[in-house]
Structures are given as structure tokens and as C-alpha cells.
């Protein structure tokens, strides 16, 4: 391989052979290095949470990531391509132009024994967001989530002034073995923290006012219906298939009925964080 080795002579064969070999090595090395370098950059800029959400979303089964417009039946079938961030979605924009969300009738939507006030917007991870006068927003866990958890043993809330990121973990809820992160509905800075006892969890100054990626108005009922489907799916996967077809079903009751083992799996599925 090296000119000073006994028996070495330069031939075309040598050059081609070595050329190919070193090229391969170079490519492999370069790829590895670039991967390492880019991940280092991510870690530096603290966008790890974002990455996590992307890879999680990427791993979600097709039925867990339907487009909001599929839920409403506007579209035949569509997987969300933007990890639930409709602000970058052209399809969403065009559809909104065609048909702005109809004003909801009534102040809140109620079904399956749950109440979803319509003065606020909902995130797919079962949090709600309410705009306040002073431009801040209040964030809380929606009825579905509360009933699913029941009364948590403890919660881990962010510190005041801490930055929370869209689809990153906003706070964690602990109950038994379960340690479930709740996805943040938006980017912002925590101003105040509430908790399970108060009606809200966080008061936040949003990074920017555009909250079009959240569900509101008439979409909510379709979404909730879809969520019940998913819940049923998750439960049956976990081995317990409650009958939800006839009569209103109480999520809390279901939750209570569900054995702890599958309980965690179910929460993971419903809160989009396996």
C-alpha cells in the first residue's frame, strides 16, 4: 500500500483500488462528521425538543395524525405533513380562504359528558389556550385530559420566565408509575403558574400572536369525536375494549376501569407523547 514497502509497485490497479477504498472511507467519515456536527448545533440552539416532536410525529401511526380538515370531513383522507403546525400549511390556508370556520352556536360544546368551552382554542395534545386582554395567554388542560388523569399525585411546572416551545413538554403530570409530559400549544415565556387545583396551569407571553395552528369553533366537536375513536382504538389495543357505542360514556369511568399497565400506553397515545 505504501511505496516503501518491499514488493510495492505503482500500477493502474493499485491506483484504482486505493482510490475507491479511500473515497469510500472519506464519504463514510464525512457523513458521520456532518451528522455529529449538525446534532451538536441542535443541542447548542436548544431545539432538541422540536426535533423530538418531529421524530415522534414521524413515528405516529397514520390514524393518529389526520389533517384537521379530514376530521371535519372537508377532505377525503389526508395525513398531516407539517407535524400539526398549520401555520406553514398551504392546504390549510387555501381551505380557510374557501370556508372560514363557522361561528359556533352556543358558548360551549358538550358531549360524552365533557365540556369544551368555545371561548378558547384547543391543541391536539389536549391543552387549551385563551387569549387575555393584555396580550398574554392562559394555558390549561382540557376536560378530556383532566378526566383521563383524574386527580394527579403531583405536577412538575416550569419556572417563571422559562421558555416553553411548541409541542415540547410544557409541564409533566405524575400519577402512580405514569410520568406524562403535556405538550405545549405554543412558543412563549412563562409568566405565572397555576396547577391542577386552579382552573389553569400557565400564564404565558406568546412568542408571536399567530395561533392558527390551534383548533377552534366548530372544529372542536369533530376533533373530540376523533379523539374518542382514538381512545377506543388505544384501549382495545391495550386489551380492554369498552362499549362506547350506546349511551354517553364517561372518560373518567373508562380511565378508572383501565388497568395501570395499559393506562400508561393509553395516556401516551392520547397526549401524542409515547
Amino acid at each position, binding site marked *: 500500500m505504501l511505496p516503501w*514497502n*518491499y*514488493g*510495492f509497485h505503482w500500477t493502474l490497479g493499485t491506483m484504482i483500488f486505493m482510490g475507491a477504498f479511500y473515497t469510500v472511507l472519506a464519504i463514510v467519515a464525512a457523513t458521520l462528521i456532518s451528522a455529529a456536527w449538525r446534532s451538536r448545533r441542535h443541542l447548542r440552539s436548544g431545539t432538541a425538543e422540536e426535533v423530538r416532536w418531529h421524530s415522534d410525529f414521524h413515528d405516529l401511526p397514520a390514524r393518529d395524525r389526520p389533517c384537521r380538515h379530514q376530521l371535519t370531513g372537508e377532505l377525503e383522507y389526508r395525513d398531516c405533513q407539517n407535524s400539526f403546525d398549520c401555520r406553514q400549511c398551504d392546504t390549510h390556508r387555501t381551505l380557510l380562504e374557501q370556508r372560514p370556520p363557522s361561528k359556533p352556536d352556543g358558548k360551549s360544546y358538550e358531549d360524552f359528558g365533557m365540556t369544551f368551552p368555545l371561548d378558547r382554542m384547543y391543541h391536539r395534545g389536549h391543552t387549551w389556550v385563551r387569549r387575555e386582554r393584555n396580550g398574554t395567554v392562559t394555558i390549561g388542560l382540557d376536560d378530556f385530559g383532566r378526566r383521563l388523569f383524574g386527580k394527579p399525585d403531583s405536577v412538575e411546572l416550569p419556572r417563571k420566565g422559562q421558555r416553553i416551545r411548541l409541542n415540547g413538554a410544557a409541564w409533566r403530570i405524575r400519577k402512580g408509575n405514569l410520568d406524562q409530559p403535556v405538550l405545549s400549544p405554543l412558543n412563549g415565556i412563562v409568566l405565572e403558574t397555576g396547577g391542577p387545583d386552579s382552573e389553569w396551569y400557565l400564564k404565558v407571553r406568546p412568542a408571536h400572536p399567530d395561533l392558527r395552528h390551534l383548533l377552534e369553533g366548530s372544529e372542536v366537536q369533530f376533533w373530540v369525536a376523533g379523539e374518542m375513536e382514538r381512545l377506543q382504538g388505544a384501549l382495545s389495543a391495550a386489551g380492554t375494549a369498552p362499549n362506547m357505542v350506546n349511551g354517553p360514556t364517561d372518560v373518567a369511568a373508562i380511565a378508572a376501569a383501565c388497568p395501570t399497565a395499559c393506562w400508561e400506553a393509553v395516556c401516551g397515545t392520547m397526549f401524542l407523547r409515547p
Partner: protein
Amino acid sequence: MISEKKPGKISRYGMSVDIDKCTGCGACMIACAVENNVPPAQEGATDLTGLTWMRVFKVDNGQEYPAKQSVYFPMMCQHCGLETPCYLVCPQQAVDVDPATGIVGQIPGRCLGCRYCMAACPYHARYFNWWDPKWPAGMEKTLNPNVAPRMRGVVEKCNFCHGRWHAAVQRAAEAGLKEIQPGDYVPACVEACPAGAIQFGDLNDPSSAPSKAAKDPQSFRLLVKLGTEPKVYYHSRREWARRIGDPSQAPDGKETSHG
């Protein structure tokens, strides 16, 4: 094996073996082992795991008594001169063909022991050190200082006593000669053969015994159709014996046992 300085003259050393003369005494095999520091067989070694750079086979014409005829057939590396199979396949240049002598040599210090060369050799003339080399206590005093003993796990083979060639070149240089004289360099087996059946010389020198043998119609080479140009010529008056070299029409000459 690593020949630092090469003489101006380019030789093609070859051998000629008159199998009619060979009595199968085995002196060549012993002389070879003595010269090249080949260890005695270890416990459990067989004719398939032994180290016999030079090996004499007994070959018969496949007939029964009284028509049965046998010859003793010395086999060693045939030092292929073209597309040398072992040389081409060795992954790490542990086989080298000395351009000055045409001798196919093995560099044990570089051999990985993959045995690819053994699979490649049509003459089964290469041997693997299946055991650590061991000599009876005290016998290592009788080792030849011109040849390094090989370690376990490497391949070795006949190299026409290449060490003797180096010695001859050295002597010639000391004597102020440019090149070595024919008599100066003779492999151990040739020296030892009591019947004078084996002869050695430079195929580039028309007066040498092998060159003459090469022209003899009663000479033949083994598996010559493979196109590897072996440099060892065999000679026999007997027609059936000459067919040994050609498997496609050889008598069903099986390797029968000892004489």
C-alpha cells in the same frame, strides 16, 4: 527472501528430474528438511498435515502384477513462471517472485496464514504450519543459520534453497565476480540425491541440464495445460509415466503407499 541487491544477470532457475533414476530413498526429502530447518512431525501429524517441501510419491501404472510398473516421483514447488497462481492470490504480497532468479518464494514474516495460496496451487506443493515448530532438546543446535525457522500458522514451501543462492551471490561478490557460476548454487535435494536423478540449472543457459531436458521429447511437465509454465521438467523413458503429467489421459494411477 527479501533480496536487497540483485545481480545484473537475469536467471530462470529450473529443475529436471529423471524419474527412471529415482530409487525413492528419500535422501532429498531429508536433506531438504535439514537445509531449510523444517521441524520433525509433531504428535498427530499425518501426510496431510506434515511439512514436506520435497515429497516423493510412488506412482504405478494402475496394472496388476506382473504388468504392474511403478516409479518414484519427487514433487516440489514447480515454480510457475506465468500467472503464478499463489503469487496472484496472496492478499498481502507474502508470496514473491524474485525477478533475478524466477524463484517463487514465501515471506513467512508477512504471511497471514489464510491458506488461499494453498487452495490455488494445483501441485499441492504448499504446506501450512499447523503446529508450533518443535525440535528435540539440543537438536536446535543443528539448525541451519542461513534459514529462519517459521512460526505456527504460516505457509511455507520449496524455494529452490533460495538461501543458498544468496550465499552464492555473496561469495561471488566477495570474490569480485559479477555473477555466480553454475556449480556455485545447487539446492540441497540435488546435492543429496545419490542416484543423481535431480539436476538443477538456469533455463536461460542453454548448456544447463534443465534446458537440455526442456528440449528432450521424453521430458514432460505437470499439468502444463493450465498454462502456468512450471519450471520443473520430469523425464522418463516409459510412456505411461510421461502421462502422469496430464490428468485428462493419465492411467488411473492412484498414489499407492510406501515402497
